């Protein structure tokens, strides 16, 4: 934890205007979680809450990474399996957690392995994601951050949820094609 404190110190030194730094601090706070041991981060402002793994009801005719729906206090939310989405092998141990993310067009859940910490990461510490060997469209990344020796993939989770909402067209088309194929078969 030593390097972290130093970094935090360094960051506050950058901003002489304290008010501005406080606002910045809120806006650049990230929740950092793991998927198969790798660190990922999401803007804390985009995360509504984190819940324990609950019953996920699979939805017919959807991509495998759309894991299903959950009942969150009476609301039915879609849940994405981030491991499947990112092409990571399925989780073998632990039950995992669900991040409830907020986007312009509603909420959705995303499964993660563990939550590591919440921390401010100033923009200065974030580099554009190199985009090597990843299944995620680059625009769904905020970038890659270096914290100590570790690299954190920072995800734009609101964008991911937004893209999920917008993909319906594509998906329905696929379904149409599929039923068409069935018909001609």
């Amino acid at each position, binding site marked *: 934890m030593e390097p972290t404190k130093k970094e935090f110190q360094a960051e506050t030194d950058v901003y002489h205007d304290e008010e501005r730094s406080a606002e910045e601090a809120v806006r650049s706070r990230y929740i950092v979680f793991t998927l198969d041991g790798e660190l990922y981060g999401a803007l804390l402002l985009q995360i509504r809450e984190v819940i324990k793994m609950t019953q996920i009801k699979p939805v017919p005719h959807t991509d495998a990474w759309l894991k299903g*729906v959950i009942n969150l206090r009476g609301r039915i939310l879609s849940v994405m399996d981030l491991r499947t989405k990112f092409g990571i092998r399925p989780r073998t141990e632990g039950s995992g957690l669900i991040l409830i993310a907020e986007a312009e067009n509603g909420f959705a859940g995303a499964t993660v392995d563990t939550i590591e910490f919440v921390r401010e990461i100033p923009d200065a510490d974030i580099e554009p994601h190199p985009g090597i060997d990843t299944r995620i469209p680059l625009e769904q990344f905020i970038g890659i951050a270096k914290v100590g020796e570790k690299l954190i993939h920072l995800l734009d989770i609101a964008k991911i949820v937004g893209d999920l909402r917008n993909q319906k067209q594509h998906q329905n088309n696929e379904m149409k094609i599929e039923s068409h194929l069935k018909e001609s078969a």
Partner: protein
Amino acid sequence: MPSLIDNEILQIFFEEGRQTLDELETGILSLDSGSIPQDSLQSKLDEMFRHAHNFKGSSAAVGFEQLTHLAHAIEDLLTLIKSGHIEPNQPHCSAILRSIDALRKILIGLSTDSTYQAPIDHHIAELRAAITDNSISPGSTSKEHLTSDNPPPTQKVEAKVKTPSEKSDNPKSAEDKSIRVNTIKLDGLLNLIGELVVNQSMMISHRVNSTTGSDHAVQTLAYIEKIVLELQSLAMTLRMVPIKPLFQKMSRIVRDVSVQLSKEVAFQTEGDHVELDKIVLDRVTDPLTHLIRNAIDHGLETPSDRSAAGKNTTGVVSLAAQQQDDRILITVRDNGKGLDAEVLKKKAIQKNLISPESATSMSDEEAWNLVFLPGFSTKENISDISGRGVGMDVVRKAVTELKGDIRIRSKKGQGTTFEIALPLSLSIIPGMIVSVDQENYVIPVSQLVEIIELQKFDVHTSTQKGRMINLRGEVIPVHSLSELLHSGNRTIISRKNSATRPNAEYRPAIISRRQGKKFACEVDAIVGQQQIVIKKLGSEIQTMAGILGGAVLSNGEPSMILDLTSLPGLNTVNLRALASSNDKRIPSEDRHEPSKSA
């Protein structure tokens, strides 16, 4: 200046203005129909004048000049009518009604844009002309004088339950007891109450399982249980609104259309106290408007045709609502000429909608239903009244979207009846819970014709048409819900499908209908029936074919409400099966069981 006025005050003005105009319109309509008894005419006229005057006053107060001017002109005309200088006639009423429409339009425009303007000069001119014409030659319109002793020849509004003139002296008392609530808040409340019910039932099962609770706690819990149940049933009614305003709107349409077409129409309504979900009410307005217009335009004959047919020259159009269990039945009936099955068939053949061969085997009822086909219109020339590009197909589509049904009954020479059955609510439906591959799904009870035990039937397999059974002489295709649900997702199939099912002793299947044709859907088990609150899903799921919405089952489990009629996979297979069962009643399979095919 409107811009300086507090937004809240403006909102109140818009809301009150709308109500005032509605009340003024109701008054004018009853004046126009001559349904006001002579002895209360004066007080009714006073009331109408007061509405116009109040509207003018409040418009001026918030600085909307156009509204003020037009309302002033209405007030002028009403003043002269009230004082007896002018005998009210139909042109007067028409002028005022048109001005009310204009006021409404401006009111709506102003609510989004405080500088909104609309042409009003011709309305003012029309009102003024009504005044001057009448004062110059009062005798010229004497034939059209509207009093109850002398009913108007062209139009009459009869309301069986309550005519506007019979309204209580204080019509506002009921309205004042209600407040407007944002539906988002309401939905949030219903959501939470739904969760409360779920959690409470889980708590009850815990209580049954444990013996540690003290008597006092048990008692309190029982009390809370009662409260929650009451809360839930109360919450269910929150969205319900009376259908009455819709009926009032329709009486205005009857009035306008009958005047325009010079047909004599008596309009009857029944059941205006029936309540239904606000959304259903809003969305049934357009289809009903169309049906009413249609009934007058296409259904009723001209007065001369009617007397030639030995009927009363005044045609009757009736609009009735009644509640039947979980459904609202709305009927639009006319006593006009009725539908001619042969004419309909001919037209449909002409328009290439059906083949001459299929027409010959068509029953009358099937022929009537041809009017719902897109591109069908029973009248030679498309009229201004009911032919504005909106056809009966749009009516049916709207009703179907509301999860309702529409049926036609007709008798040649005696009239036509359209019956619309709608769910009471779009947000709460009775659901049948079925289990497929260890997952529970909800099927709306409205889609359910019956449940059969598949093992009691001989299931025939033909390579082309899939499986079929003979259900009391009717050959219907059999689908597996498991296959329908998982055809798009191979991983789920391989994971689950193998373990469960075949050769089970008890194999329930749900019989449902798609486009009037039955089909069977095999499931693993029928779990039970439950009132289901329909939850909206994320659009990525909500827009998928075959999915109606989400639901929370009584144990808190999330689930999907399926729309059996639009489930993908069903379409293609089913249509083929339909085609063959349509061709001839008796496919080859039936030969094996002659006893059943009677």
